[in-house]
Every structure is written in structure tokens, then in C-alpha cells.
């Protein structure tokens, strides 16, 4: 990406990163990731366990110093964020550990003072709805309850940028639906920008406007959710026709009987590759989960 583009992108993007690389104990976790979020967009970050999702999020927020590359939050370098930027940002880690010696209510009362737009009523109501005891020490809560309290903390601050790392794992289906509803309505109505990582693809299909597939430290695909579903499909070719397979495919798998499955893309005119018209060939629409499985294998 050229310098001018880069410049405008990180002035307007609530969250942006360029060329992030990182490694733990000699193994590469991030291998050069560029990612920028448009204001008001909901970006779902999908990847297998260990794909580097949490590391990417932490590096983008300046909670971890990457080996190389740079990250910006509201245009400020992520590693040197000012208080103003921090007040407009909320992040929920997978395993919140802060302030464990306080009760849930004490933590929310304390933290609330730092946020100009704190919604104490929302916090009270949601603690009750999500069946959390306000007077129990955070240290005594289960990891799931702990993350629920932290989600309430994040939402009650009414952030402009909301970053959630695997938020779905801690919630039962009813609470999960409620969280998704909050995320969707806030993005749509208040223009909140949201980044959330998950391996539960159907959550993301409800609320995300865009998805990014992170695989082995690289972004494999970055696309609007609707466009992704319309643009990619699985092409199956019988063994006799497999030689005619298009050279360009996102994934390619040969089956025991010699037949071939490929993930293919429409061209600029909306057509599938020519091989799709061969006798015996099949084109199947792919849900995001299938697409993810096909290309991450």
C-alpha cells in the first residue's frame, strides 16, 4: 500500500495496523498483517484456535509490542495511547483478570468514573439479566461469569470502538443473542466500530458487516459478509474432468476417487470458471462456515 493511502486510512480508521509480525519462542504467530476498520463497521475475525487472533488484537491495541509493523487507534500510535483515546475504546479480553479483589458492583462503580458516557443503568440491568451477583468478588466468579461482567463493563462505557476477543464462549445462547443484539444495534445506530474474534461462525454472520480469515498468521480473506457468500462457491469435478480444473482456486482438494473439490470465485462479470459448465461438474453455494473449513484445512 502506498504512503498516501496509508496516511488517509489511519487518520479516519478507528483501528488500523500495517505489516504486523510477531513471534513467540521462535515460531511466527503473525506474518505481516494489514488490517483497517471503517467507522461503524463490524468486523468479525475468524480463525482456528492458535491462528493468532488474540495476538493480533493485542498488537492492534498496543497491549503487546509487535516484532515489526505498527498499529493505530483513532489515528494515534497504539503503543502510546492518550487518555482521551482510551476513554473512547473498550476491550474485553478472553480471560479478564483485572481488579479481581473487587466485587462486580465495586469494579463497575470504580471503572465507571473514568468514562464520560458511562451508563450505570445499563450495567445494573444487564448484571441482573445475565444472572450475575453484584456483591460477589470477581476472583470468586467462574471464567465465564468474569467475562460476562467485563462485557457489561465494556458496553456500559458506550465506546466508539469495541473490541471483543471470543466473547461468545462465556455466554449461554440467550445471553449470546442479547450481546449480538447490543453489538448490532450500537453499530447500526450509534456508529460504534466493532472488532470481534470468534470461531463460532454463525454469530458473526448475524452481525458482522465484514469478515477477515486469519490463518497461520496471515489474513487469507477480507471481504463483506454478503459479498463473500455471493462470490465464492465449491466446485466439484469428477475424476475424468479434473484436468480441466481452473488454475486459480482458494483451496484444492483431491478425493480418493480422483475427483476434485475447489473453492472458486466469480469473475468480474459474475461468472464461475469455465470448468463449472462441464458435464458432471457441480457448483455448490457455501456458507461462511463451510468456506472457512475449506480454506483453513
Amino acid at each position, binding site marked *: 500500500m502506498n504512503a498516501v493511502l496509508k496516511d488517509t486510512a489511519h487518520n479516519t480508521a478507528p483501528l488500523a495496523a500495517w505489516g504486523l509480525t510477531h513471534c513467540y519462542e521462535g515460531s511466527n504467530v503473525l506474518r505481516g498483517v494489514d488490517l483497517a476498520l471503517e467507522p461503524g463497521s463490524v468486523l468479525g475475525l475468524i480463525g482456528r484456535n492458535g491462528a493468532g487472533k488474540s495476538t493480533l488484537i493485542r498488537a492492534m491495541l498496543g497491549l503487546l509490542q509487535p516484532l515489526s509493523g505498527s498499529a493505530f487507534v483513532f489515528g494515534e500510535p497504539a503503543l502510546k495511547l492518550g487518555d482521551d483515546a482510551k476513554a473512547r475504546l473498550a476491550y474485553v479480553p478472553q480471560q479478564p483478570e483485572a481488579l479481581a479483589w473487587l466485587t462486580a458492583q465495586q469494579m463497575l462503580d470504580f471503572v465507571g468514573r473514568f468514562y464520560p458516557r458511562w451508563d450505570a443503568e445499563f450495567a445494573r440491568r444487564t448484571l441482573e439479566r445475565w444472572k450475575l451477583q453484584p456483591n460477589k468478588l470477581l476472583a470468586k466468579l467462574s471464567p465465564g461469569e468474569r467475562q460476562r461482567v467485563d462485557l457489561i463493563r465494556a458496553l456500559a462505557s458506550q465506546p466508539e470502538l469495541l473490541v471483543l476477543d471470543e466473547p461468545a464462549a462465556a455466554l449461554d445462547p440467550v445471553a449470546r443473542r442479547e450481546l449480538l443484539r447490543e453489538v*448490532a444495534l450500537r453499530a447500526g445506530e450509534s456508529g460504534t466500530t466493532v472488532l470481534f474474534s470468534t470461531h463460532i461462525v454463525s454469530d458473526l454472520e448475524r452481525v458482522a458487516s465484514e469478515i477477515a480469515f486469519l490463518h497461520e498468521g496471515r489474513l487469507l480473506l477480507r471481504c463483506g459478509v454478503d459479498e463473500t457468500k455471493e462470490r465464492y462457491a465449491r466446485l466439484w469435478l469428477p475424476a475424468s474432468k479434473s484436468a480441466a480444473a481452473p488454475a486459480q482456486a482458494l483451496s484444492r482438494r483431491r478425493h480418493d476417487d480422483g475427483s476434485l473439490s475447489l473453492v472458486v470465485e466469480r469473475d468480474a462479470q459474475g461468472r464461475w470458471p469455465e470448468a463449472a459448465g462441464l458435464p458432471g461438474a457441480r457448483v455448490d453455494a*457455501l456458507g461462511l462456515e463451510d468456506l472457512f473449513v475449506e480454506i483453513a484445512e
Partner: protein
Amino acid sequence: MDASLLTIQPNAPEPIYRQIVEQLRRLIAGGQLAAGELLPSVRDVAGFHAINPMTVSRAYGLAETEGLLERLRGKGMAVAATRRASQSESQRLALLEPQMLELARHARELELPAEPVLRRLTRLLGD
């Protein structure tokens, strides 16, 4: 109309905005939604189904372009006044095209000749 009348399958290969337009088309063609009837607000649909409001706006916008819906000032979206009467048989038949293509594909995969399939279909249609 109530937001719960729509069914959303987030993990289907068909994008959610298309699912909404498709259902509106059917509900209107089938007369379940009468001309002039108000649609639930974007917020109601998005809130009820926990989906992105932009997806609902996109669906409503597309349905408006197709002439299914019209925007009433200050009231929101309503079923377009002229719609139902103008739906000819061929237009309604065109709505079945995706299912017909799917059926035809399955029949070919099962190597079934057309005749028994048509016979069964005729029975199902009650003729």
C-alpha cells in the same frame, strides 16, 4: 406486520438481505401482506433477529427499488399500493425458479426421468 414473521438463517449460503427480500416477495405475492401495510422498522427487525441494521436497510432498499415496497414519509416502509394486482402468473411463476432449478438438479443426480417426477409433482399440487 411483525418482525417475527421473517425467518432468518444466518448460516445459510444465501445472504441475509436476500433472505429478507425473498420472503417479502413471497408474502406480498401470496397476499399475506396487503398493499399499504406498514413494515416493521429497521430497528425492530434488527433487534428481534439480532442482525446488523445495515443488512435490513439494504433489504428494504432493494425491495423498494424492485417496487415491492414504498417509503411513506414519516411512517416508514409500506407494501407498495399497486403491487399485488399487477403480479401476473408468469411473474409469480418466476418466484419458484430457484426451487425448480434445485429440484431439476436433484432429479438429474438421481438419474430420474422427467415423467415420474412430474407425475408426483402433479399429485402434490392436488390436480
